[in-house]
């Protein structure tokens, strides 16, 4: 029986290792990248905002609307900023339907590896925006690109960063519209 027990112990250790390896490989890899500076998730420290480098990146703005009768566009297509320099951009949104609607915006940044260095100090994302019928509102985004981007070898080729927003309708908030239209859109 002790041989069996030994085998059990080995196999349990093995499975735990398999489990751990599988589960941990992604975070481990990211952590590894951060520590070695090889990967894309380099952390940033909070007190380097004063530093402004000469290197410039072009920030392009993109917008999408998903399931809402809204016009949503950036007020500028792109803007060139120095690393560390604060930029201010506006998006405008207009409700072209005849009833007030609530939407919420998600956003993301490409290239993925540059995303952790793109920092927004003010944005309209993940909060519900209510827009009256026919109303047009302008929404600011204040951002800067972390100067540490310059120190990362992997990001040497990054000259162009895209900031993209998508407005979704808030689940349940615009029911009379979406229950019918949303399904229609999806099917």
């Amino acid at each position, binding site marked *: 029986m002790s041989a069996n027990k030994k085998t059990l112990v080995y196999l349990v250790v093995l499975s735990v290792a398999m489990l751990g390896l599988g589960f941990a490989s992604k975070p481990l890899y990211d952590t590894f990248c951060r520590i070695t500076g090889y990967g894309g998730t380099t952390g940033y420290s909070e007190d380097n905002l004063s530093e402004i480098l000469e290197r410039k990146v072009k920030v*392009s703005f*993109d917008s*999408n609307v*998903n399931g809402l009768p809204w016009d949503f566009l950036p007020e500028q297509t*792109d803007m060139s900023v120095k690393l560390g320099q604060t930029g201010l951009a506006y998006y405008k949104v207009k409700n072209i339907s005849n009833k007030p609607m609530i939407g919420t915006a998600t956003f*993301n940044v490409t290239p993925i590896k540059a995303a952790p260095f793109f920092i927004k100090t003010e944005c309209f994302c993940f909060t519900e925006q209510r827009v009256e019928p026919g109303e047009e509102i302008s929404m600011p985004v204040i951002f800067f690109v972390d100067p540490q981007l310059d120190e990362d070898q992997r990001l040497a080729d990054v*000259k*162009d960063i895209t900031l993209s927003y998508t407005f979704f309708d808030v689940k349940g908030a615009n029911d009379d519209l979406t229950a019918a239209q949303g399904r229609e*859109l*999806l099917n």
Partner: protein
Amino acid sequence: MRLVHNITASLALLLIMPGIAFANKPTDGGYWLQDAATPVMEELTKLHNFVFWIILGITLFVMVMMGWIMFRFSAKRNPTASKTTHHVGLEVAWTIVPIIILLVMVVPSMRLLYFQDALPETEMTIKVTGNTWNWEYAYPDHPNVESFISNPLEKEDAGDLYLLKTDASLVVPVDTKIKVLITSSNNLHSFAVPAFGIKMDAVPGRINETWFEVNPGKEGTYFGQCSELCGVNHYKMPIEIEVVSKEDFQSWVANDGAFTTAVVSYDNGSIVLQD
């Protein structure tokens, strides 16, 4: 077994015959990658061919070995079996050799991967949105060109190019580094153009990017198809890309996204339209 080996061997031979020059779309009876129109696709084809020779070699090696063993050690020719069950050298060898082959393979493979990913300084951007079931194209750098929807043509209109031809193609200039932003308005889609060596999923709420640069002299119409299952009309959302000369593209932009017969001249980079 031999017969089967012959068949598979001749099929393999078929594969290594020099490829016929293909057009910008799939060819009936085609058995190789579509012709490369971009540097990425050229590199991709090179790597594919490189790996192909390696895997063909491995397959042939195993096949020949098997054939020889089946011939030499059949019960007829070798009535008494040996009892060998271990050979350390051999076992080490067939662990080490594949590792070496893989190491040889992984170097160009990584090079291609990073080449595809590293976005060069792009000269213009196009934005692609996957809808159910058509593609929407926008030119953020050219605000005067309205975004438009590209629907597939029905059989009557498309003729031989049914399921490839659309009513509005994406127009891009040749010899220009173009960034493609890809997103989706509902289901997943995938924007794929085989001749360009690009394929990128369109994910709702996310923006993905890739890039291509059509080689000089490669003007023409290219075709691709949605490559991620997106529902009932998944098969029916083709991608049609018209690659034109830089001049033609300028005039297309100047005409707010239309080809006209109007004569266009260029004066220090700014466009002058003449009637």
